């Protein structure tokens, strides 16, 4: 009972503080803008802990955050091995291959308007399909190890990246291209000095979408078969053993890795496209 009451109190107090902060005089400052979501997150975790303990929810249904944290700290070595297998080997290599190939092909088909008109609708169509479904096929082709995960990731990131890059390469307007022509710039000079820089906002949009897709692909592909390590493998086996604290620890790792990956790409974007209106203060 104590736990339920105190979690309700924490909830009320957190909401009240947030309400005051959001409607107070300093609501537009950077600090408050960070503090409010942070407080909200802490409140949710505190209420979760309190309710799980107060209502004595069995750990096999929902473990309290403290148990997850303990499990996380106790199995850092397993989590690290899984992280390397799924993220570094599977997701990252697939991400680099897939995005790289899509970028190169986009630059190539950019020379032919005919191919562009054909590939863009087809690419858009394929990007909307449940490509995760190719996972069982690719696992069959490339074996259980990380190569098949990388292949799934390649299949998932390729078309979103292709479509975005092609759109980006079309982003320059006629005046700019005419200017390059009056400089008597060759195709390659125009490409490198004008069109690729102008394409960067769209390219990074594709790269950012692909970060999430890469992790999803790598994890789901492991549900179809994996060596005895990897985040998807651990999640599916621990769920079978009802070791939910371990599952939540893996999910924490996945969430952290996903956010960090996205954040890193966004940071590079900020450096590369500093001139774009969306990046100015």
């Amino acid at each position: 009972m104590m736990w339920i009451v105190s979690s309700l109190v924490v909830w009320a107090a957190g909401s009240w503080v947030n309400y005051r902060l959001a409607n107070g005089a300093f609501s537009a400052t950077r600090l408050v803008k960070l503090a409010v979501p942070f407080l909200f997150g802490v409140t949710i975790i505190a209420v979760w802990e309190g309710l799980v303990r107060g209502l004595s929810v069995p750990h096999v249904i929902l473990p309290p955050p403290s148990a997850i944290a303990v499990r996380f700290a106790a199995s850092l070595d397993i989590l690290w091995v899984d992280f390397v297998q799924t993220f570094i080997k599977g997701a990252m290599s697939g991400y680099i291959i897939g995005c790289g190939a899509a970028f190169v092909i986009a630059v190539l088909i950019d020379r032919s308007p005919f191919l562009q008109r054909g590939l863009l609708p087809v690419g858009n169509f394929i990007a909307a399909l449940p490509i995760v479904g190719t996972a069982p096929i690719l696992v069959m082709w490339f074996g259980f190890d990380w190569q098949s995960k990388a292949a799934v990731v390649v299949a998932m990131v390729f078309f979103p990246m292709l479509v975005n890059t092609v759109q980006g390469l079309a982003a320059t307007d006629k005046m700019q291209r005419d200017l390059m022509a009056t400089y008597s710039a060759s195709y390659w000079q125009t490409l490198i000095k004008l069109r690729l820089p102008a394409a960067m906002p769209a390219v990074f949009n594709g790269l950012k979408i692909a970060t999430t897709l890469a992790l999803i692909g790598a994890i789901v592909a492991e549900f179809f078969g994996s060596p005895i390590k990897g985040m998807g493998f651990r999640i599916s086996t621990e769920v079978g053993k009802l070791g939910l604290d371990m599952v939540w620890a893996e999910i924490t790792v996945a969430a952290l890795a996903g956010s960090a990956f996205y954040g890193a790409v966004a940071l590079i974007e900020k450096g590369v496209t500093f001139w774009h209106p969306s990046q100015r203060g």
Partner: protein
Amino acid sequence: MMRSVLPILTVVTALVLLWYGAAISMNSKWAQDQAARAGLDLSFTELVADTWSQDRPRLPAPHQVVQELWKSTGEMALKGRAFSKRSLIFHGWITLSATMLGFVIGTGAGILLAVGIVHYRVMDMSVMPWAIASQTIPIIAIAPMIIVVLNSIGIQGLVPKAIISAYLSFFPVVVGMVKGLRSPSIDQLDLLRTYNAGTGATFWKLRLPSSMPYLFTSLKIGMAASLVGAIVGELPTGAIRGLGARMLTGSYYGQTIQIWSALIAAAILAALLVGTIGLIQRATLKRMGMQP
């Protein structure tokens, strides 16, 4: 529109040709081994014919997949057994119903939350950063857990899959809808203020109509995400029914043609669902005079 028909057809034809070619090269090893064991020497045409007609090829040729698709949909329907367990219509229906239920729940909740976020500053500041951050997280990782946990307290079948679908379609809709509800310019909002319009009137007459293009865009993303959620949700329970289950059993028993036909069925389903939203979008925006 007509201008792009020829290029699209060319690209699609090229893809199909590529597929046939890949089928030859990927299945030829098996064909060669079989021939060597039988002490035969395969000519090229025989080899090609064999690679396109194996029972369990590494890569089934397009016509094999189409045949399997027809056998498990149209032919079954003609025999009046459209809902037997061997029919893809049956499995597709299982997946579709979970997708639709999840989609309706997810988008409904997403729109409600977006309305709250636009009107209450505290909700905006506390929830919005999490909603955006959640898009960078592979949420699908929790799918097996939801299925098994709900199964352990006695809920199974449609609902757990629908919850995963709802969860996946929820956040894109929140983010897109908030953007849409905020899309009216200061001028338009000021005009409504000079009319002495209240929050409700501003919402119904300005914010909601101008959010429609954003809503439909995020509905399409949400629909695709819902379908993926339902398919992945069918994997961990041992996979009895649904398109995801067909893929999993296919991968257990090496039935590549079955996997491919389930995959193509899922693709057709996705295209139909997203296409339907596209049609509704067109009709709605046309009625509202937003698109010429």
